[in-house]
């Protein structure tokens, strides 16, 4: 099982993030930490996502509305990339001539 971080760990790791800001990201569901008896638990992926949120809000000056739009688009981008990768993998498992016909049909579109 991968490592988990408490809310205090997260604030100590990401020095430019405040507790108030973190709670507002959770309330806006930008970040979905696990819930446990001892409070929230964060994973590595949450920390990387919080760094991204800090870049967007502090460096690019996005307000919370814009932040919600951007993070949702990034999520959708990654879903689309994953689905594309899954389809590519599936095509590679097909017989070569069938795979080539699919690729040819895609490039004609």
């Amino acid at each position: 099982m991968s490592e988990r971080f408490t809310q205090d760990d997260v604030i100590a790791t990401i020095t430019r993030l405040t507790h108030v800001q973190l709670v507002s990201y959770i309330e806006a569901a930008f970040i979905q930490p696990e819930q446990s008896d001892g409070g929230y638990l964060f994973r590595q992926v949450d920390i990387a996502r919080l760094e991204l949120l800090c870049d967007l809000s502090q460096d690019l000056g996005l307000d919370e509305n814009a932040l919600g739009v951007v993070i949702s688009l990034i999520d959708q981008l990654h879903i689309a990339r994953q689905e594309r990768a899954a389809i590519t993998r599936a095509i590679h498992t097909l017989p070569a001539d069938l795979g080539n016909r699919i690729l040819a049909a895609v490039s004609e579109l």
Partner: protein
Amino acid sequence: MSDDPYKILGLSKTATTDEIKQAYRKLVRTSHPDLHPDDPAADARFKAISAAHDILKTPETRARFDAGEIDAQGAERPPRQYYRDFAESSDNVYQQRRGFGPDTNPGDIFAEILRNRARQSGGDGFSGGGFSDRGFVAPGPDSHFRLEVPFLDAVRGADTRITLPDGQALAVAIPKGTKDGQTLRLRGKGGAGYGGGPAGDALIVISVRPHPVFRRDGDDIEITLPITIEEAVLGGKVTAPTIDGPVGLTIPAGASSGRVLRLRGRGVVRAGSAVKGDQRVELKIVVPPDTDDDLRAFLAGRQQTHPFDPRTDLLKGADT
């Protein structure tokens, strides 16, 4: 890439603080690795841009750089993991909006396909979104949660609740035999629908907290059971914990460490499945912390009269 932070940001030495901020923002937009997941060079560019900005963003460090007191390396950043590095991993909860894992109920996939088809064909006003006589109708969005549950609650099933971001609580029934990483779908517990459309679903990704005694392997439970030297040699009845409470277990005479005994039907029973897992008990011989002179004298005597080398085969096998 150039070491000069002004050149990296495409600025002259006379740039104002505002121009620095503008130039930096523009470069973040074009080079942030998370905004350009398909660009492998974005990482290196963004690192250089950030380091340059770190020097120039405050007038103090900028003045020290201009005076030659610090060089461009002064703001070297530690390596950082970007969000895109996690985006491909299968346990990224932020990407499980539509993926179908191994535990997905085939009915859910079918329902999803029907829902999408209804959406594409303009919608019938109920299952998909679209304009009907009553105006715009669409199902509500799904909401996503993650919940850590204790090991025993996951294998035995339990009722718990999660706190929603707005402070309300949502009752969650953890089905028997829930696995780490499994997603529970609570129909109609997501966001409210639009124009009388159905509410979305609440999707809850479960992570199972490890247990100090029990481990899970598929439907089987594994434990390591300490036994005494006497029990190992003579055999006997001992008590072993199971997920449903302690049971009696007969240790066969002459059992070694590492021997695995099977308690049939004492493992995980998954909800909706008739198959019962087993509990596998691995024996581990434990020597008393204080060995007395009697025991030492007895064993030393036996060593002389009954030589036994359990490593003979091992040493032979190591040569081949």
